């Protein structure tokens, strides 16, 4: 009988996910998002070196972020300072592998 009363007190614990998102989902580790105005070539090189999963790369004048490879470890936040912030996006399922590769222009150039 006790389990029944306890159940009534706690209410429904099941997530309502596809309809609405749980509030704690904001706290999930998520891939980074970049401020392209603050990106310099040196900073991008430091980010490439800091990424253990090879998710951050560089192609000419752009930073290439491969979300598929990102493990959301957070090391880029330590290196990048204000230029790199958590995206807060966990709904990352993709139909095409190439949809997960994002190109971010380096607008600041050499510092």
């Amino acid at each position, binding site marked *: 009988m006790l389990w029944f009363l306890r159940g009534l007190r706690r209410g429904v614990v099941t997530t309502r996910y*596809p309809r609405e998102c749980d509030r704690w989902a904001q706290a*999930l580790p998520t891939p980074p998002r*970049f*401020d392209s*105005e603050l990106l310099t070539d040196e900073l991008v090189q430091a980010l490439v070196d800091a990424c253990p999963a090879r998710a951050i790369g560089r192609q000419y004048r752009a930073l290439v972020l491969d979300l598929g490879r990102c493990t*959301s470890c957070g090391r880029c936040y330590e290196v990048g300072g204000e230029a790199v912030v958590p995206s807060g996006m966990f709904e*990352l399922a993709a*139909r095409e592998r190439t949809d997960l590769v994002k190109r971010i222009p380096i607008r600041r150039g050499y510092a």
Partner: protein
Amino acid sequence: MDAQQLAAELRARSLSLFGRSLHVRTLDSGSCAVCESEIRLLAAPHYDLHRLGLFFTPAPRHADLLLVSGAAVRAMDLAVRKTYEATPDPKAVVAIGACALGGVYESDLFLHGAVDEVIPVDVYVPGCPPSPLALLQGLLVAIGRLEERVSTARFDLREERTA
């Protein structure tokens, strides 16, 4: 009618065949078991994937969808291919986790480094490990009940502000 149109029609028809009940077989191609622990949580009361008409099945022959984790170790090639062939058509394959998508491990003598080198993949779910919520979204995208969002998502703060 060209091939693209035919493919789209075929996809829509196979999705309608899945209806509102779908059986999922998990397949470990050499993962560290953290993805598996997140998959296990899907059946727990908090996520309760049965409310969505999704069920786990122990046999690929009863499955509609394969949930593949791990970095596709070459020693598992035969098992992965056999499981894929044993799954009846129409079937969907969802690759989950950074290892299965080509992160973490390079391709070398012992592993392919990505699941789509071995079997065709329909939906990719990134994360290390992907949260059960992310897995749920991946499954619902695979059966066409949710739209994928990542292709239009912006990962440049400036681009968002100007747009």
